[in-house]
């Protein structure tokens, strides 16, 4: 057996650990953040493959789980709507298609919201034993969300074909809006992740909150135009992003571009700040879990 080639000596860099806050040396902090993001790509890819293959190997229905929730949801609400149990205003698309498509988008948002908390919880043991770039587990989760969306894309295409919905050139822009929706979820999730390591209340709370949040987002009903409820729905940051993705993919006419850009810009800035918070907070969170 020939000896393995030497490992490149980039690891020769000296690490210094002190009690002081890393914020005292912002330059050093930013450099290490950039370096970790860069070096964690390979690991993130590896972890993503691990999680996806482990997930599907232990499942009989496999891909069906990506399709079932939106279909069941659409069936339920269509039945309820037809029986006049609930009263829903006319939607711009056939109702069942509207609910299914919106549900897929919502699911993707919720996955992004839960992603960092779940990823950190699942990796607790690993985190408390090996010092690897923590960004990797979050990136791996984002990759998994992307993979899940690709599967759901099959259902989306089926919906478009079945209901013979036209597609405009604007649909090409829909992925960008979708990314912004995922980033919004990641922003909230990343902010909560270190707390989630300390307190189980966080993951419990997220389930309750996302259940309520679903009904404050125009998914099973069209965007309300007047009243207090309309104001609440408009103030919900998910609304402009989700509605924009839906509009770009179907009608091609964006009803509220201003709000969309404001929320997107805020998300990106927020995400950068949260990244710093995540990095600084993780050692303290890990310290409190036993190895």
């Amino acid at each position, binding site marked *: 057996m020939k000896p393995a080639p030497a490992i490149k000596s980039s690891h*020769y860099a000296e690490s*210094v*650990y*002190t009690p002081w*806050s890393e914020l005292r040396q912002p330059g050093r902090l930013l450099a290490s953040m950039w370096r970790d993001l860069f070096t964690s790509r390979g690991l993130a890819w590896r972890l993503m493959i691990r999680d996806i293959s*482990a997930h599907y190997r232990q499942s009989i229905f496999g891909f069906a789980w990506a399709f079932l929730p939106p279909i069941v949801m659409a069936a339920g609400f269509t039945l309820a709507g037809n029986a006049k149990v609930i009263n829903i205003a006319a939607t711009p698309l056939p109702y069942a298609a509207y609910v299914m498509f919106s549900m897929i988008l919502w699911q993707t948002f919720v996955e992004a919201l839960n992603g960092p908390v779940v990823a950190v919880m699942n990796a607790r043991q690993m985190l408390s034993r*090996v010092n*690897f770039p923590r960004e990797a587990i979050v990136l791996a989760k984002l990759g998994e969300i992307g993979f899940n969306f690709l599967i759901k894309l099959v259902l989306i295409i089926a919906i478009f074909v079945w209901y013979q919905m036209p597609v405009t050139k604007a649909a090409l822009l829909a992925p960008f809006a979708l990314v912004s929706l995922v980033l919004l979820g990641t922003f909230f999730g990343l902010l909560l992740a270190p707390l989630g390591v300390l307190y189980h209340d966080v993951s419990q709370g997220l389930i309750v909150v996302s259940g309520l949040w679903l009904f404050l987002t125009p998914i099973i009903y069209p965007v309300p135009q007047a009243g207090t409820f309309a104001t609440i729905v408009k103030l919900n940051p998910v609304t402009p992003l989700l509605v924009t993705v839906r509009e770009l993919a179907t009608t091609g006419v964006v009803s509220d571009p201003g709000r969309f850009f404001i929320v997107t810009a805020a998300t990106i800035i927020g995400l950068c700040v949260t990244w710093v918070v995540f990095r600084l907070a993780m*050692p*303290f969170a890990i310290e409190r879990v036993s190895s």
Partner: protein
Amino acid sequence: MAAERVSTIVTEAGEADTLVSVEGVSKKFCRSLKRSLFYGLRDIGAELSGRSRHSDVLRTGEFWALNGLSFELRRGEALGLVGPNGAGKSTLLRLISGLIKPDAGTLRVRGRVAPLIALGAGFNPVLTGRENIYVNMSILGLSKKEIDARFDEVVDFAEIGDALSAPVQTYSSGMAARLGFACAVLTDPDVLLVDEVLSVGDMKFRMKCLRHMGKLLERGTCFILVSHNPHAILTVCPRAIYLAHGKVAAAGDTSSVLSQYEKDTFSTSFEDNGEPLHLPPKPAEESSGLDIISVCFKDEFGSSLGSPLTGKPASICVRCKAHRAMSGINLIVAVSNLSVENERVLYLSSHYDGRPMNVEPGEVELQLELPYCGLSAGLYSAKIVVTEKSVQTLDAVESFRFRVRSESTAVQNLFYQPREWRAKIVSPGDKN
């Protein structure tokens, strides 16, 4: 590879030599979970505000897990770390790997750290051995190319062969541990942190690990070895630190640190006065016809011996009271080493040796005569059983504890080897 490492040492001289430097490092913990989590939250707040979190002061309920620890570790050095549970050994390793921040002092670490606190970190039981090797080594910081280059070596070292394509959950615990160990040591670490992992795997694998660690030392890796097994530490580490209550209780050459540690550990739990063990008399209804009264050591002249000396004659004398005449009495002496995880070192039985004994009613002393005591220095526990015709147990002593002392300083010997040295002339040469 060796050439590259050597050139690094030469060009950077001096400073490059020190891989780990720990200066006055302290770390505090809190035993109450609720409070500990709350403190965690406050520390996060302080860290984010960029102000000092006044970490050098204890808050209510906190204690120092490590207190003002300093040492340095150079390229190619091995340091043993001993101490009772909760002395701060694992905390120190976690600080060096950069998992947690110190509350006072500074740590400087150069190069790749492979923490063996983390055997098989990130292993997924559903995935195959092959997939898990890639995941685990990626977590330890290797790229795909680097893993490819080492893959065969890892499989070879872990001795998993055929099981490579089977899910890791079908592996025995020893196999999984071997795989984890192989992944970690073959990352070519600069600093290796070994925490009690040598207790996994069978004897053969343990020896292989120790040999590989020796090879790493020659290549310039330095490591810290935490173990409850003093022999493992003695074999690889010339230097050791004994931690107690977060402070250095002793530091220096391994054998003196270890003897200090053993003295402290066992002096509190066990009176090492070498007194014979006396047993209270048994009521008649509990007796099976023969009762052990006392157990002690005697020297070759028949006088009582507190603790036997390695290589010198000693007899284990079991004084019994027999209520009737019996034949085919069998004495069993099973000795375990208290210093090495209670490992059984001797199992002597007069029945196995074909030497049954006969007793008459009255007091009798069953003697096991050792022409020289083969046990090396340390603490031992003997289980003593007297049976009739090798089946019927008459009486037993669960644990007779004793210390074996040694006159020589050859602490590396696992047992006493009787020996002679001479220079024998085979063929006389020319005398000019």
